Every structure is written in structure tokens, then in C-alpha cells.
């Protein structure tokens, strides 16, 4: 508090250079809007990095400067209340706001620590993603693109019923290969990953990404200086801080969940983050087997193509969901023109039209990205102008 008071003269000096002072605001201006703007400007001058009404800190600064201004300067006249009553009201408000501020500061410090922990976890996750999620993702991508290629090239050759059945069977075998490559073993109801039973591993219900996407409401502003207006303002401020604290609690919980997981499994702490998607991959095997079995049993000359392609498509879609859970984004378009990094050129198609140079002729697969990294390029044929 003393530090804040001591900082005021500096702020005043800076503000003075702009010919505006805190005292000036409350002494000279009758206009509420100008007062708010000027107060915000005073805050800006004092703490140039902070924008008023954008986050907690300036909220504190705003409140504080209002408090200090209130204690130092004569309050404005408010219709329906005497100057003395307003003074008393503000004196009542001040400790309440101070308590809220202390609470916020406390949580802010906790937030800083949580943010640091978040960052560490994120760094682990990103480093981990590169090494662990990526290897999982590459297996899923390989099978997904195989399914999509099957559908894309359907009709290239007339298949017999036996071949449909055989190729559907291959899909199950391919999925079994995927499980082997990922060191996943399904043992009845158990899922064994890297020789560990992960069947009972809790699944996170909230991700860091979801937490970070949460936006915070605007800090309420006092506009009505009547008793009722001030009471409403206090209520909305309380509600505002309440929601902030709840969001922090949510974040706490997510971090706590990850920390609990890490505490439970000592080998490769970061592997814990894989368990949800590994579990999902393992559980899909039974669904896939059942789907293929049903298709095979119902195959006829008339519906074989439809059932075959349908099964492939459903599998590709399921794999897409698993890839999303790995943090992979899939783009089936990218652009009409060849793009470095995102496209892998398979062949150029000559053209006499210079306008077509660099345009995509054919796309063979999707683009897969993880964060900023392209992990699987879209294979394309591209026009190349001969002139």
C-alpha cells in the first residue's frame, strides 16, 4: 500500500507532463465520462503497459486510484446524496475493495505460479507431442490415408466378392499392425500400453487448450452514482471477481488432474497425456472388427462397393477423431496453388497456359499439422508452364 502511495507522485509527475493530474480530474471535471477517461489516462501514464479495464491489474490500479483519489480529493456531488454520505459510502467500500484486491493479488500470484506450471506442462506437452504424440499420429495418418486412397481409387478395377471380403479383412489386420506398432495390447477389458495397464487411467475432462480459450467478461464500470447504482455496481463487481476466481479454480483443477496423473505414474511422466488417446485407439478395434464383420456378412454383388467404401470411410473418420485428440489438424484443401512446406510435389503436369503455372492439378491426401509444424504434407500434382 505504501509503495502504491509512494508511486503516486511519480505518476503525478508523468501525468503532469500531459497536463492532467488525478487531483485535476476530481476537482475540475463535473463530467462523469471525462472523469473515467481521465482516470484511465492517469492509470495509463502511471502504468503505461497496463490498459485500463482490460485485466485484473488495471482493475486494481483503477480501483486504487479511485480509492486514493476518493481519500485525497473532494468527491463529486451526486444527486440524491450529500457529499458527507458519499464520503461515508466510499469509506465503507474501500476496505471491501481492498479485501477483494488482496484476494485477487493472492490469486494472481497463484495464477502466476499456475501459469508457470502451465507453461512447463505445455513445454513438456509440445516437446512430448513432437516425440510421442507425433509417432502415434504418423501411424494413424498412414492408415487413414490408406482408407481414403481405397475410396478414391474405387472403381479402378472390378473386384470380386472374394476380393471385397479379403480387402475388408486386410483393414482389420492393418489396424492390428497399428496396435503392434504403437505397443498397444488388448487383453479382454484391459488395455496394456508399453506394458502398463492403462485401463483405469482417469480421462481428463478439460484440456489446457479449452481453459486457455476461455475469455473473461469486461470489468463492470460504475455509471450510476446513486445508492442503487453503487449497490448494483458492487454486486456486479462481486459477480465479476467470483467468476474470475471460479475460472482459476477450473484451471487449478486441470493442473491438479495432470499433476495427479504424473504422481501416479513414475515412468515417462508425459506418457500420461497419451493415455486417453491410446485408450480410444484400443477401444476402436472391437468396433472396427464388428463393422467389418457385419459388412462381410451382408456383402452382395449389388451392395459390395457401397459397403466396402462405407466401411473405409467410417474408419477414416474415426481415425480423424483420434488424430484431433492428438492435437493434429487436418486440412483437405490448403490452397489452389502450390505452397512450400504444405505440399509435396509428386509430379508436374506440363501446360501451355502460364496462368496455370503452380496450380494444383490433383490432391492425393490431406495436410496434417501439429501446432506450427507440418507433420505430413499433402501430396499433389502441379501444373508447370512450358512457356
Amino acid at each position, binding site marked *: 500500500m505504501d509503495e502504491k502511495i509512494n508511486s503516486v507522485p511519480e505518476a503525478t509527475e508523468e501525468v503532469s507532463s500531459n497536463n492532467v493530474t488525478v487531483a485535476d480530474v476530481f476537482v475540475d471535471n463535473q463530467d462523469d465520462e471525462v472523469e473515467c477517461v481521465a482516470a484511465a489516462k492517469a492509470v495509463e501514464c502511471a502504468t503505461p503497459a497496463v490498459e485500463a479495464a482490460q485485466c485484473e491489474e488495471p482493475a486494481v490500479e483503477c480501483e486504487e486510484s479511485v480509492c486514493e483519489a476518493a481519500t485525497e480529493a473532494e468527491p463529486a456531488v451526486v444527486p440524491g446524496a450529500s457529499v458527507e454520505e458519499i464520503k461515508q459510502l466510499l469509506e465503507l467500500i474501500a476496505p471491501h475493495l481492498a479485501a477483494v484486491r488482496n484476494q485477487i493479488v493472492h490469486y494472481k500470484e497463484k495464477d502466476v505460479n499456475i501459469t508457470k506450471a502451465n507453461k512447463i506442462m505445455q513445454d513438456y506437452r509440445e516437446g512430448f507431442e*513432437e516425440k510421442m504424440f507425433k509417432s502415434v499420429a504418423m501411424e494413424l495418418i*498412414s492408415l487413414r490415408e*490408406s482408407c481414403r*486412397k*481405397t475410396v478414391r*481409387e474405387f472403381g*479402378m*478395377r472390378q*473386384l470380386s466378392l472374394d476380393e471385397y471380403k*479379403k*480387402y475388408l479383412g*486386410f483393414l482389420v*489386420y*492393418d489396424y492390428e*499392425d497399428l496396435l503392434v*506398432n504403437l505397443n498397444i495390447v488388448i487383453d479382454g477389458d484391459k488395455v496394456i500400453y508399453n506394458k502398463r495397464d492403462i485401463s483405469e487411467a482417469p480421462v481428463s475432462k478439460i484440456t489446457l487448450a479449452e481453459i486457455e480459450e476461455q475469455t473473461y467478461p469486461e470489468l463492470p464500470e460504475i455509471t450510476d452514482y446513486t445508492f442503487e447504482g453503487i449497490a448494483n455496481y458492487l454486486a456486479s463487481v462481486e459477480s465479476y471477481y467470483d467468476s474470475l476466481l471460479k475460472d482459476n479454480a477450473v484451471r487449478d483443477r486441470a493442473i491438479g488432474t495432470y499433476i495427479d496423473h504424473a504422481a501416479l505414474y513414475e515412468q515417462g511422466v508425459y506418457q500420461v497425456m497419451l493415455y486417453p488417446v491410446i485408450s480410444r485407439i484400443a477401444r476402436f478395434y472391437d468396433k472396427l472388427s464388428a463393422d467389418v464383420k457385419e459388412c462381410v456378412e451382408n456383402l452382395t454383388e449389388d451392395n459390395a462397393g457401397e459397403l466396402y467404401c462405407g466401411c473405409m470411410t467410417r474408419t477414416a473418420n474415426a481415425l480423424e477423431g483420434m488424430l484431433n485428440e492428438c492435437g493434429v489438424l487436418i486440412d483437405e484443401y490448403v490452397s489452389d496453388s*502450390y505452397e*512450400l*512446406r504444405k*505440399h*509435396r*510435389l*509428386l*509430379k*508436374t503436369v506440363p501446360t501451355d497456359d502460364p496462368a496455370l503455372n*503452380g496450380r494444383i492439378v490433383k490432391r*492425393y491426401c490431406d495436410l496434417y499439422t501439429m501446432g506450427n*509444424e507440418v507433420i505430413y*504434407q499433402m*501430396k499433389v*500434382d*502441379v501444373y*508447370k508452364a512450358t512457356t
Partner: protein
Amino acid sequence: MAKKIGIDLGTTYSCVSYVDEMGIVRILDNREGEQTTPSVVFFEEDGRAVVGSTARDAGAMNPERIVERVKNYMGDADYRFYANGKEYSAAAVSSLILKKLIEDAELALGDEIEGAVITCPAYFGDGAKYATRAAGENVVLSNGQNLQVLRILDEPTSAAIAYCNSKHEDMDKTVLIYDLGGGTFDCTVMKITINGDEKVRQAITTGGNHQLGGKDWDAALAEIVRSKFCDATGADENEMMADPECIAWFSENIEKAKKNLTSRESTTLTLNWGGYKERIEVTREEFEEATAPLLDQTILLVNDMFEKKGMNVISDIDEIILVGGSTYMPQVTNRLNAEYNKPLTSYEPNKAVAMGAAIVASEWTEQQEAPLPIGFGGAGDEQQETPVVTDAILSKSYGLRIVSGGEYKVLNLVYKDSPKPCAGNSADAGQPLVITNSADLVDEVPILVLENTSFERIISLDECDPVFVEEPIKFDGAVPGNNAVSVEIAVDIDGIVTLSLTDLVTGRTYQMRPKRKLDDVVSIGMADAQSTSLM
């Protein structure tokens, strides 16, 4: 404080490393976050260049602007690459790769680089090493200075140094370094003596085949898969291999299958082409049978190297060190065990070369000055005295053309496997020369210097390659033409050859100014490379 780093300048991939304050050797990531940088350069139309992973992507539409595997041409005076109306020597292109490696290293370290040890294959002769050093010296650092090339280090020696550095117990061993990489095979014999803190590394001999590597194993496995698929489906193999999507599938899946066979007895791939699908199973046994001839080649090269040296693996070697990613294959260890029955140690197969270079760089002291930078017109003006470092040996022999028995032959003055630096002269070899029969002063000598891999004193001219352009070689001074003179061939620590002439009458020695065929070539494109911005 400015750092000294090690650079493994590879044919297909390059790698940078350094020794940190704790004495731990670390590999530096490039700005793309990769530990290895593809040795690929793409020249943009606007004059900028792209080096590394994105170069292949950037150059896909214009493959004529991409340069790959330029290392294979480092000693080739006829090699040129053309882009944007300019021409580049192999050294100039390599200079761009080194520029990228240095810039990324400075970014990763947050510090300036002042010097680097650059590795090269053991089979590199004088010309290729000269070009490599020139490429390094052409790089301008962030402080405006040119990179100081501390040493040009043979790759197998570098790997052995890294291995030696990892050992802390006393030892006195002779080891065989078996380095099977992606594109090359090298073998080196080295004696390692550790006594407390004192570590002595002495290279004894080296050999290999720079056209043999893991890529040949990949090709063999791909052939097995293709063959089985075509047999099962009736598909046309030529049509398959003309399909770019099929080629891409093979490049993505074959190496993965090869790695699977390292840990499993078999692997299965599902190949989907032309409307056909087949699951192709390849057993480790099939794969090893198909690639046995490749492995045989490496064994033959090792045995040949020992035979030429009058040594024997079984009696003279204590341990075999495995380097290079391809040594992970069980067939390599099984075969070496069966052939030699010696302890096998796998040491950082993919990083050992870069690590060794970093260690040598970190050991570099101010007393050990590198040879003066090579100008593009000839060798350095002075020979700095450097201590003999026995971990470096000559990979070639060097000699003079003489007339023997009425025909041209070569008299070797310095021999392969001699520790560097070293020198030999014609007088000591029993061949003092007389330049002319006249007493008139002369300032040039009509001699030819050649390199070869023989241990013989006199060999056929056909087995040798010239080091310098055949023309009278000038020297700094003049001697009566009929004075007996001796020509000395000196090879510095990097394996680069210099010449001097001694008047045996007066005892005075003169530096010679030989001209390499590369001298006019290595500078081509160097200024452009230096000023080229990297994307």
C-alpha cells in the same frame, strides 16, 4: 564468449555440435528444430538461397535449381552448378550449406561462433579437403569476420575421438571403427591409450567405400516388396516404379519396415496400387539373405585394409566400435561376431562424427594455430608449425613423377597412414633433381605431383591422380639450373599438400607455388555465395 563448434558436413545430412561449459557434447538444433540439416541447396529466382529441409520443398517445382550431394564433387575441378545466370563451384555451394549451419548454430547458442572443425570422408584427397577448407573460410560470421576453419578432420577419426572421449577408465586398446552410414562405409583402425587424464589417440590406417551404405539395404528391401506384390497381383513392376505416388509410398514405408526388422523377426506392409491390395510379409531371414552380399562387401573392405597394412583383425584388434545408423541392423553385429569374434560396442551411431569434431574444436588452443587461410590462387604463404597430432593420418600417398626404366612412374615421398602433418623429400628418397643442364638461374621446376593409395615406393602412373596442374611450378627465388635440388612434399594437419624446393648446394629452401586445377575453380561463385541471403 565466442564458441568453437564441430560440423559434420555430410553428403546427405549435416550436423553441428559443441562442448558446453560442463564438458558435455551437445548436438545443436537448427532453426527448424532438427538435429540434422539436409545438405540440399535451392536457388530462388530472386537470388536468395534455401538450405535444408525446405530446400527440397522449395525446389520441387524447379528441380534444376536444387543441388544435392554436392560433397561428392568437392574435388572435381570440372563441376559447375548454374543458377540465375551465375555459376558455382562445389565449394561455393558447400559454403552456403555451412553458412546455414553457422547461422543456426549462433541462433541456438545465442553466441558468436569463431571457429569450426569440419569433418570429411577419409577418402577425400588433397583437392577435396582444400575445397572444404575454402568453403568454410568463405563463410562470413555475424561479427563480420570470416570463419576460422580449425581443422579438416576425417570422419572415422572423429567418431573414434568421440568414443575415446566417452571413456574414463585406463585402457590401452587397438580398435576397429566400423562406420556404416546412410550413403558411405568407412573403416579405421585406431590405438587408444588412456592413463588417468591423459588420452592418446593414434590412427593407424583407414579404408572404405563411399558408394555403399544404408540406402542400398533400403533398395534391396523395396525390391523384395515390389517383387512379391507383382507376383501376387500380376501388376507391372515398371509401371509401379513410374508412378510417383507409389515411389512416395516406398520412400515412406521401406525405412520404417527396415527398422521394424531390427526388433522383430518379420514385418508386414499393405501395398495398395492400381486397384490391387496385398499384404506383403518380409521376414528378417529373407531380408538378410537379400542383403548378405552388401555386408560381404564391408567385410572384404575391412580385411583388405588389414592385409595391406600387414595386420590381422583377430590378432591385432581388441574391440570393434560401431558407428552409423545402419549398424543397428542385427545382421551387422551377427556377421561381425561370426567373422571376428571381438567385443562390439555401439557408440552414438548417428552423432559420433559430429561429437568428435566438437571435442577437437573444444581442445583447440591459441598455440595450435590453423594453417593460414588459403587464398584462391595457391597455398598459404607460410607453414605454421603445428604439433603432430597422431589421431590424424594420411588417407593417400603422395609422390613425384619420375622416369624409371624408360617410362614414367611415380616415386612416393609420403605414405598413406602416416601421421599428419608430415613431409618427405626427393633427396632422402634417393632422387635429387637437376632442373636444367645450364648454370643460368631458373625459378621454376617441371615436376608433377600425384596422389594414390599405395604403400609402394615406386608405382605405375596409372594408379595415380595429379594433385597440381601439370606445368612448370614456380618457386620464390632462383637457383642455377644445374644445381642439385630436392623437392619436398609436405602434408599439413588437414591433409592439404604444399611444396618446397631446397638447393642442395647452398642449402637454401624456397616455397613453391603449385597450381591446383581447383585453384581457378574453387573460387567460382564464392563471392556470390558469400553475399547470398538465406531464406
